């Protein structure tokens, strides 16, 4: 009741008021001025969480059978989210996404790990393998808007009917079997951190120095091959396509070639890319940044930019725009995370926005694990249960187990694929759960990477030994990278499938306990169970999820 009163008191705020004047970036947005931060921000909660308005248990979650067909309605025209079971705070859901042109729908079972195909492909892995190999069978992958906008250009992707068609469908071939997969694109905001030296954030947007146009790269704008002309205001000072008459002055000018990414641009790019799930542009600040004012400014800007993204979104009937919760590591009552959450809640209650899902951003940037899990915990407690929750940039297996226990549904990370390229395989067992295949130990190790793994390297009659992979890595044979990438993705997919199974059987607590004890075996020789070395943050995070390790 109190909550409703609070909402009434706050009242709907006209959109125009949300765009603040440049000198006011650190001022609390008007729509948050009347929010009661003495109580935790939360909305749309079900058991085991407490209700939105008081401290009584929330109503039970309504679950549906696993094979329930999707229903897309006006309130959520491109996403249908079903919860099948909960085990503690962990949940097994299915996300049905509006199929891309001509495709059949491919449901996304959660918890899910989304491999990252930055430039429209997974490094060393064909779409055929990714979608048809049962060990992988990835229903959704991630692409980076920033990179796709540079190469090949989203205009070109739009011509092809979107990235789905560009990646895996020969549109002129009648016998072609289109690969069936979903796509998620980030907004380009992450590059504010990863390319921090090349970017500058203003209220208008993010200005990147185009890394591909730096004269030292010697590329002279060749990367803009996908753009027909340079009329757009986003990419300023289009580079010449002819290298023949490049003067020193031109080279100096290239230093100044900047790419301005506005929220409107980000959405336009993502509309052209055509991913099933797109992200609002957020003001990402490195989680290890010490400037508190910068975090505050970024949090409010993220809310303002979300409004601009909503306005710019042209394909809400087929693409789902997820806002991103920011706010640094401030989980205090009324802190930045709560203010960001309150902002989104306000917009939902006012009917300004009806986000089909929410993302938790600003993490996995080097912050302490203690800070990390507390942010995840707070966001999961606050965000509505009838919508998917996506934790951005997180992909360590232990993190997936802990965060799934806290209620996260979706993850993405380059870790499994990148680490494969360094010759490291993900394996169960003591932390860090990796096997460095280039090490001398593997030179004569004739075991497979992981017994029971269904990947091409480990399963069936093919079985590739560690020694063989070591040997192939030594000579930089591409097959080694391909097999390791497959193994690591198969490992992640297997992990999320196991988690889902455990949740469906309401045994997630036992699964999490076993997983943690497998990773941390300290003290096992003294009392058989091990686990003496389980980090405090794991214990505390799982305890917050109701799991005692």
């Amino acid at each position, binding site marked *: 009741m109190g909550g409703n009163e609070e909402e009434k008191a706050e009242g709907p705020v006209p959109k125009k008021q949300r765009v603040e004047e440049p000198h006011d970036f650190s001022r609390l947005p008007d729509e948050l001025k009347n929010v009661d931060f003495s109580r935790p921000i939360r909305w749309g909660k079900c058991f085991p969480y407490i209700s939105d308005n008081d401290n009584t248990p929330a109503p039970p979650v309504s679950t549906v059978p696993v094979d329930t067909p999707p229903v897309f309605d006006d309130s959520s025209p491109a996403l249908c989210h079903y919860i099948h079971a909960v085990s503690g705070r962990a949940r097994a859901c299915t996300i049905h996404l509006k199929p891309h042109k001509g495709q059949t729908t491919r449901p996304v079972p959660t918890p899910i790990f989304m491999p990252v195909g930055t430039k429209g492909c997974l490094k060393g892995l064909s779409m*055929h393998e990714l979608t048809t190999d049962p060990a992988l069978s990835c229903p959704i992958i991630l692409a980076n808007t920033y990179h796709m906008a540079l190469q090949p250009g989203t205009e070109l992707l739009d011509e092809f009917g979107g990235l789905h068609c560009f990646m895996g469908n020969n*549109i002129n071939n009648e016998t072609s079997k289109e690969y069936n997969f979903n796509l998620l694109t980030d907004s380009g905001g992450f590059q504010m951190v990863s390319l921090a030296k090349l970017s500058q954030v203003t209220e208008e947007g993010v200005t990147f120095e185009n890394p591909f146009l730096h004269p030292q790269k010697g590329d002279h704008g060749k990367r803009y091959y996908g753009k027909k002309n340079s009329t757009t205001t986003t990419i300023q000072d289009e580079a010449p396509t002819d290298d023949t008459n490049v003067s020193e002055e031109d080279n100096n000018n290239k230093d100044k070639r900047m790419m301005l990414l506005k929220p409107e641009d980000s959405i336009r790019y993502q509309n052209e890319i055509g991913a099933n799930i797109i992200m609002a542009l957020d003001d990402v600040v490195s989680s290890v940044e010490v400037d508190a004012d910068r975090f505050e400014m970024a949090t409010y800007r993220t809310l303002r930019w979300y409004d601009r993204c909503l306005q710019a979104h042209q394909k809400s009937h087929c693409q789902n725009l997820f806002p991103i919760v920011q706010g640094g590591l401030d989980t205090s009552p009324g802190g930045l995370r709560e203010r960001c959450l309150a902002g989104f809640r306000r917009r939902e209650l006012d009917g300004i926005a009806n986000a089909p899902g929410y993302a938790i951003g600003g993490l996995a940037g080097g912050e302490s694990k203690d800070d990390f899990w507390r942010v995840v915990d707070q966001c999961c407690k606050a965000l509505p249960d009838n919508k998917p929750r996506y934790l951005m940039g997180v992909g360590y297996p232990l993190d997936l187990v802990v965060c799934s226990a806290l209620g996260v549904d979706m993850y993405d990370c380059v870790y499994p694929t990148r680490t494969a390229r360094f010759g490291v395989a993900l394996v169960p067992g003591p932390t860090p759960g990796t096997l460095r295949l280039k090490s001398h130990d593997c030179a*004569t190790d004739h075991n497979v990477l992981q017994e029971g793994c269904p990947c091409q390297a480990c399963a069936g009659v093919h079985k590739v030994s560690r020694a063989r992979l070591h040997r192939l890595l030594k000579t930089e044979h591409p097959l080694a990278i391909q097999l390791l990438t497959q193994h690591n993705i198969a490992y992640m997919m297997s992990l999320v499938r196991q988690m889902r199974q455990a949740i469906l059987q309401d045994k997630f607590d036992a699964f999490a306990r076993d997983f943690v004890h497998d990773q941390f075996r300290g003290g096992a020789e003294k009392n058989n169970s091990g686990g003496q070395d389980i980090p405090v943050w794991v214990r505390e995070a799982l305890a917050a999820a109701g799991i005692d390790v």
Partner: protein
Amino acid sequence: MASKRDKCSASSPSSNDDGGEKAVRLLLHTVDGAIPYLTPHLLETCFPIEQVKDFLWIGIAVRDACISPVMATPKKDTDETKNKKKNKPSGYAFSPTTEPDAWLLPYTRVTVPTFDPCQDSIRHSHKNIVDVTASNDHVMVWTEFGRQTLTREAYDTAAAEGLQSHASVTLFDACTEDAKAKRKRASLERTNAWREETIKSHASDGTLWASCLVAAAKEDQDPGVTQQFESIQNALDNKSVNGVAFVNWQTISDASQRVSVLQQCIQRIKNAPTTTTLAVLSTNSLEQVMECFQQGINIIGTNLPIQWAKQKKAFVCDVGNWKNRKDPKRPKLEPSSVDADGCFPVDSSETWIRDANPILAGCSCLTCQQHCRAYLYHLVQTKELLAEILLFIHNLHHMIGLFRACSQSRISGSEEELCRHIQDQIANNNNNNELQGLTKH
């Protein structure tokens, strides 16, 4: 022990199925005993054994497939540091017991010492010179792990027991064309001796191909050369070997000389049974492949599909319309700049930027079925490994198509026509940098 060779469904190198001696097969060079870019899943999907067994054989070089680490025996392993040292290989050496990758077992595998000893030497030598040496006991082979000694016994064991190949080429000591006469003579003598020894000790369950040093064959009067061909002829007559593998032919730079040398070699073993396999272990260009085919070679070894994929080139030479070249109703062809190998350089083909067509219309490879030129161009521009993977799948598939066409034309007696068709394309390209190779959509 039941041999893995017996269990597989590969076609036997000595069998006469699919047109017998008229079949022309591609001997694809492996790298480190594996086909680059083809994972087990991709190999099974794109090149199922039932569809390619008559045209695709796998060439495995002991040089790179059978190198294994040698572990030093620790003197004492008392402390942790020494335990760590124990795991470090003290070096690498040939291991005759190395087994082939399991997913290659269904395919016909041919073992060779090395495909191109001179090229190996250039690749690994700091001085960028050919340095191929040998003694009567062994050849020195350049590998990724330095120069290694390969003895005849170790090689034969690797071929027969470790790699369990369907066919193996006897060990040879190849030298360059411009080597001194003494060196050439020594290499011939060694090769002859090793061939004789291998024949004597060879088990009957595998196929043996006699190695024949091609470059030396030009020296008509050399007693070593005469001995080489006499020895091969005897072995063929006695059925001790089933084929002849011509070594180092690809190093002859002049095309007319290559053809004439190959003709001479074949002429010298003209009394061989008609079922004798004639193999050229390595070819470096499409032109060389067609020369081999024209001279009646059955097995043509090459790593061109791999090389082209690395160079971001797509093999698009027209291999399907040779029968109706003069048919006015033939689909109109689109001029396109391709190189002397009938390949399209994807990285510089800006016309592909917005091209939604497959690499080659009508091509049934996975790449052409599922991906368009624009996507491939994008992958090449972004330097993705997937570009090489997809290009390799197409190149190998299309190369197999070429070998299928070669076999058909040999059966139908229209070899000349096919050769002219391919050579016309290459010649057109050389003259005009344009080739009428791609059918228009």
